[in-house]
């Protein structure tokens, strides 16, 4: 009887909190969006599932050893931890704050106490430490993305870079938005948090995760989810803005065919980019360094087996762990917060402003270059969201003129946007990190 009672007492059903129910529901929404609506499924399926796993009551899958001791420990271990952390009250909430602010050596001591009492890191917490806390996963994804990226269209017309630059205005406008909401007393974001939220407008998942790990790790879940969700929304968010800011005639502009780009140029490009980053903005060097490394492996032609692995087995493995790890921070007390709502709203604004900036910059460039060299529809691709944003440009181009294939022309600003937002990330880390 006692045993049956204990099963019931420790079951999920009798321990479920409202927060967990809501977060499990959020996990299902992400799975629904990923599977039924095809919203960035490669990331949102693992994130959604990880979010559900993280919120299973009593399982502690997403907690560190010390957190598990806090939540499931008996009086002895809590007393021991409260002495260690210098908590007068012995209250768990107080201890969690003390632990979060503790020196690294004290954290290690608390972990030893938890382990001695039989509490260990949950599986998802281990994945989170290795994939995200170390910074490795976003960098390895960026290496794989580099190995998948063809810079040919950008090299054929390097001025497209300006479109990738302009679209980053969305990032910084959002920072101002977050700061403004705080000034007005509506939200409460620090400058670090504002910067991490802004990067959602960069439309680049790994960059957003990398920046928020460094500037605002407690917002990681909301930022990563927003970033991937909005990247998936690109085909819905961008077209109205693009139509609003362009005339029918502009949308009909047919661009001249891109010149042939030689193998050697493609090999040299990642090296030129790496050198510029090294000389001007070392803070962006890890991210763009790995990106250039992946791209060099792709283009150099002598390490195809490494390039293939970076594009397939390795990036897939890292994606699984990264997704589950991001999911592991989708816990109620971090996610169900007014901040998350603010992040969602600011994120979509960032996208809209980035799209508009790209289109307007394209119009400016067009008028400076005689008026019909550039179809302004490709400006929106500067936000990145490769290759979705470029496909949107292509689609709107075809709508205006069924012979107008803009895909290749839009790939230039599209990959420039990846570089642009990585540079923006470096600047933010440099200034407020």
């Amino acid at each position: 009887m006692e045993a049956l009672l204990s099963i019931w007492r420790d079951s999920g059903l009798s321990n479920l909190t409202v927060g967990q129910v809501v977060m499990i529901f959020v996990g299902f929404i992400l799975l629904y969006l990923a599977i039924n609506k095809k919203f960035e499924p490669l990331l949102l399926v693992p994130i959604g599932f990880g979010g559900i796993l993280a919120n299973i009551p009593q399982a502690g899958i997403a907690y560190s050893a010390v957190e598990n001791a806090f939540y499931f420990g008996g009086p002895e271990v809590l007393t021991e931890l409260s002495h260690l952390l210098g908590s007068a009250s012995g209250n768990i909430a107080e201890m969690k704050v003390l632990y979060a602010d503790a020196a690294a050596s004290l954290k290690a001591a608390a972990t030893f106490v938890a382990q001695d009492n039989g509490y260990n890191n949950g599986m998802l917490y281990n994945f989170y430490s290795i994939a995200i806390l170390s910074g490795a996963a976003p960098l390895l994804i960026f290496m794989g993305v580099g190995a998948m990226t063809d810079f040919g269209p950008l090299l054929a017309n390097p001025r497209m870079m300006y479109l990738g630059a302009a679209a980053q205005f969305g990032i910084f406008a959002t920072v101002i938005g977050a700061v403004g909401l705080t000034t007005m007393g509506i939200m409460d974001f620090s400058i670090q948090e504002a910067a991490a939220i802004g990067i959602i407008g960069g439309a680049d998942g790994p960059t957003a995760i990398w920046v928020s790990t460094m500037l605002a790790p407690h917002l990681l879940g909301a930022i990563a989810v927003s970033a991937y969700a909005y990247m998936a929304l690109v085909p819905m968010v961008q077209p109205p803005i693009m139509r609003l800011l362009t005339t029918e005639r502009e949308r009909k502009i047919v661009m001249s065919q891109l010149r042939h780009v030689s193998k050697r140029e493609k090999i040299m490009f990642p090296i030129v980019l790496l050198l510029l980053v090294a000389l001007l903005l070392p803070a962006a060097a890890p991210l763009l360094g790995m990106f250039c490394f992946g791209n060099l492996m792709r283009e150099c032609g002598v390490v195809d087996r490494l390039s293939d692995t970076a594009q397939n087995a390795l990036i897939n493995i890292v994606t699984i762990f990264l997704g589950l790890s991001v999911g592991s921070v989708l816990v109620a007390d971090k996610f169900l917060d007014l901040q998350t709502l603010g992040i969602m709203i600011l994120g979509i604004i960032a996208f809209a402003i980035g799209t508009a900036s790209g289109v307007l910059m394209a119009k400016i460039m067009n008028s400076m270059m005689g008026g019909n060299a550039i179809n302004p529809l490709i400006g929106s691709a500067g936000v990145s969201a490769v290759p979705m944003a470029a496909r949107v440009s292509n689609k709107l181009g075809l709508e205006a003129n069924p012979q107008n294939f803009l895909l290749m022309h839009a790939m230039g600003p599209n990959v420039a946007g990846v570089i642009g937002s990585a540079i923006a990330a470096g600047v933010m880390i440099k200034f407020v990190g």
Partner: protein
Amino acid sequence: MDELLSEGLSLMVYGMGFVIVFLTLLVIATSAMSRIVMRFEPAPLPKAAPKAKTMSSNPADDAQLIAVMTAAIHKFRNDRKGQ
């Protein structure tokens, strides 16, 4: 609060400025690189007729090809089993 706003504004000014300066330099460096590379490289030759097709016109090659593929597929299926 005012301080936060001014931090945000300077982050925008310097950040956006840096992004534009950096990408401008990248345009210049890339264009220079392309020009240098193209000077040292002859125009690309017209691509030869697709090799693959030529190969497969040889019936002996075809048989060998089929043999190799059959083995590959066989392996692929076997790999799917097990574990």
